[in-house]
């Protein structure tokens, strides 16, 4: 699971209001290089929930992202960090935790299991 995906995932248990972001408990993280695409990254900057990305990256051991995203000009050094956090950090084993209910969604071999039990729907 990469942070671009984590940024969209929510806890859809019945009654939960604060559905996202999910807190990451990382047990195994691997890094996989991906081609750098600055146009795509600039386009994504407007759509990403920044705090969720920063917190998610920290949980996976990457602390280089600035607390606030830059305003108008996003220079290459910044984009490289953004690229690395968004697309190159892979959570292989761990959990995604709902901040409100505490429910843990396991991540195994990189695949989060978001299936709810009957009572939770």
């Amino acid at each position, binding site marked *: *699971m*990469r942070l*671009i*995906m984590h*940024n*969209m*995932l*929510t806890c*859809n248990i019945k009654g939960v209001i604060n*559905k*996202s*972001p999910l807190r990451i408990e990382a047990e195994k993280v691997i890094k*996989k290089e*991906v081609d750098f*695409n600055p*146009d*795509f990254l600039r386009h*994504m900057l407007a*759509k*990403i*929930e920044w705090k969720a990305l920063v917190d998610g990256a920290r949980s996976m051991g990457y602390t280089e992202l600035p607390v606030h995203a830059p305003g108008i000009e996003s220079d290459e050094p910044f984009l490289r960090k953004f690229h690395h956090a968004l*697309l190159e950090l892979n959570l292989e084993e761990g959990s995604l935790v709902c901040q409100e209910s505490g429910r843990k969604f396991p991540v195994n*071999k*990189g*695949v*989060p*299991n*978001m*299936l*709810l039990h009957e009572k939770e*729907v």
Partner: protein
Amino acid sequence: MKLKQLEGLLGDLQQFSNPKVELEQYPTGPHIASRMLFTAENSYGDITDKVVADFGCGCGTLSAAASLLDAACVIGFDIDPQSLETATLNAEELEVEIDFVQCDVTKLELEGQIVDTVVMNPPFGTRKKGADMEFLSAAMKVASQAVYSLHKTSTREHIKRAALRDFNAKSAEVICELRYDLPKLYKFHKRKEVDIAVDLWRFEPRQN
């Protein structure tokens, strides 16, 4: 990448080893998959450099096609862990990056507008009535630019009406009609193979 080359690569993918009839697990053949994604990119620019979600990805054929056509990010969603394992192996074989999520697509809620395009070969609703509409509804909530989906030609009017009236579609067009060759996969299939008329649809959601 040329269409023939894409079709060839998709033909090498592993498919369902033990397909589950209640999930309507049928492989999306390389002929349909390649044409679907090739059209989405060449006629509409909906794949290259975009974030693409594959709903009900199964063994990941459509996801693989999106990756091979240089989507910036591809995410496959499916309820079945065995299919997701096969999909993961397929991605490794092709040396493409695809993220997978195990979930019930019909109950999925995604935050934000990150996904540009949803591609899917959803269940037709022959086992679980209305499954095709549930998948379409879910896709229209997630895609910010376009949804590509296959539905039986016999449901054409029904789909168009539902998409425009209930699922927030700005437009709903049948791009082409295809023949879906289904080999005898399940014991209850009497004929050696059947082919079903399916429509390839393109839906555009209204901007939220």
